[in-house]
């Protein structure tokens, strides 16, 4: 089989090297299938910004990709998520019989220095979540964004829209320093698009071209994040031949997907 390769460039803003922005060249084979989770994340560099799909909770979360990224050991990561890091201490969105895994793992391991999300801490501080602990110890910057603004910023980035106006957040601390403008007698805020170097997302099924099918409430942030990153890596239960997904049921187009990795059959993780 001839594997053609597309080369493209990723620029990351690395806090440790503010004087120079490192440029990383990535090779993306036309064959999108990775053989393992480790291989799928192997070229993610320190300093990268990474969107992690799902809503918060087990469904729709790319848990195997997250574990592989943790094992890769890169650091200075910026994580972009939604409900982030509350499952481990509250059980949020995980069936009772399983130990929850959440985005807090990158703060527990010291790999992440920033999170952009809507819901970083649970109502209770007993016990402290990994994100709150890192924040209290000055190890992490936490940027809290209203959920509708967060998803629209991601959607805008994927749609080539640099900024948009929203009424959400007017009159709150979220509005500080932002442009305000009135339309039809109501005040709106200017919010900017949000992209990332990588998106780790989760779908039920991919075909070999990269078309994705989702199930139930597992969509959440996944489809928008797939469009907003320079490299989108997807974790699925199953890879099928073209035609194995009904075209009426394609939830993310193959154009947005760079890499696909499948779980082993019977994986006990949800």
């Amino acid at each position: 089989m001839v594997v053609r390769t597309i080369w493209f460039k990723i620029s990351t803003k690395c806090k440790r090297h503010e004087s120079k922005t490192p440029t990383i060249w990535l090779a993306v084979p036309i064959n999108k299938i990775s053989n393992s989770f480790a291989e799928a994340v192997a070229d993610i560099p320190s300093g990268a910004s990474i969107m992690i799909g799902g809503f918060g909770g087990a469904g729709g979360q790319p848990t195997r990709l997250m574990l592989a990224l943790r094992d890769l050991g890169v650091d200075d990561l910026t994580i972009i998520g939604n409900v982030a890091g509350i499952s481990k201490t509250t059980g949020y969105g995980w069936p009772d019989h399983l130990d929850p895994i959440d985005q807090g793992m990158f703060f527990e391991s010291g790999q992440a220095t920033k999170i952009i999300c809507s819901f970083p801490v649970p109502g209770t501080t007993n016990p402290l979540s990994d994100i709150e602990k890192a924040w209290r110890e000055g190890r992490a910057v936490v940027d809290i964004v209203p959920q509708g603004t967060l998803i629209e910023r991601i959607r805008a980035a994927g749609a080539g829209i640099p900024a948009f106006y929203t009424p959400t957040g007017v009159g709150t601390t979220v509005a500080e320093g932002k442009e305000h403008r009135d339309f039809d007698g109501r005040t709106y805020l200017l919010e900017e698009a949000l992209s990332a170097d990588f998106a780790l997302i989760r779908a039920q099924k991919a075909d070999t071209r990269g078309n994705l099918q989702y199930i139930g409430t597992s969509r959440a942030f996944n489809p928008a994040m797939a469009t907003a990153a320079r490299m989108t890596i997807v974790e699925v239960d199953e890879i099928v031949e073209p035609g194995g997904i009904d075209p009426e049921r394609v939830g993310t187009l193959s154009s947005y997907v760079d890499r696909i990795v499948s779980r082993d059959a019977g994986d006990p993780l949800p």
Partner: protein
Amino acid sequence: MTSPRANSDSISGKDPAPRLDRAAIARRAARDLVDGTTVNLGIGIPALCADFLPEGVELRYHAENGILGFEELSDPGEGDPNLMDAGGKFPKLVPGMAFFDSVESFNLIRGGHIDVTVLGALQVSRAGDLANWMIPKRGIGSIGGAMDLAENARRVVIAMEHNARGDIPKIVDECTFPLTAPGCVDEIVTDIAVIEVDRENSRLILRETAPGWSFDDVQARTAATLEVDREIVRMA
């Protein structure tokens, strides 16, 4: 008829009668939900409203994570992680349900297609300002969908305990906690009262009190002036 302004940090005296429990607050808030409307229930007491819908009332529940038309269950136990509500619980698959992504979910909210949201609160002001996402002392909090819901739902109902621990008033002249949205609250249902917010005139109108509670009892536990413009009804 207006009472003298309440003192914002002193509440004296014993409660004149028991306060309603969380379920009773939810039952009262649920009584105002109208058949056929699209409703988003926040976590905590608001989510309990689903257990107390009046007979014949069917709602179209929306949850931020991308589900419409589900049956909200307060304690569904074990479940399917791919069939979750925004509170992280697992409802049942029922006919007529729809799944969608977060873009669509917030089109519904921001676009004004949610008829009613019932939310919890840390503070509500006389002008209907809502603060429910961060306690300043903690310095970190979670916004989630609350700002979008409070700003954009057609009707915002607060279901909460009237006072915070230590009998601290939560209904105040001006919020001191970071706002979720200014001037958004329509009605407040608590464990001792139902209060309508006249946002245009920054007035709080006491409509109902819990059994055994008088206007003065409720006013003494409220750090904003309450008014009445018709006979106060007993909460039921």
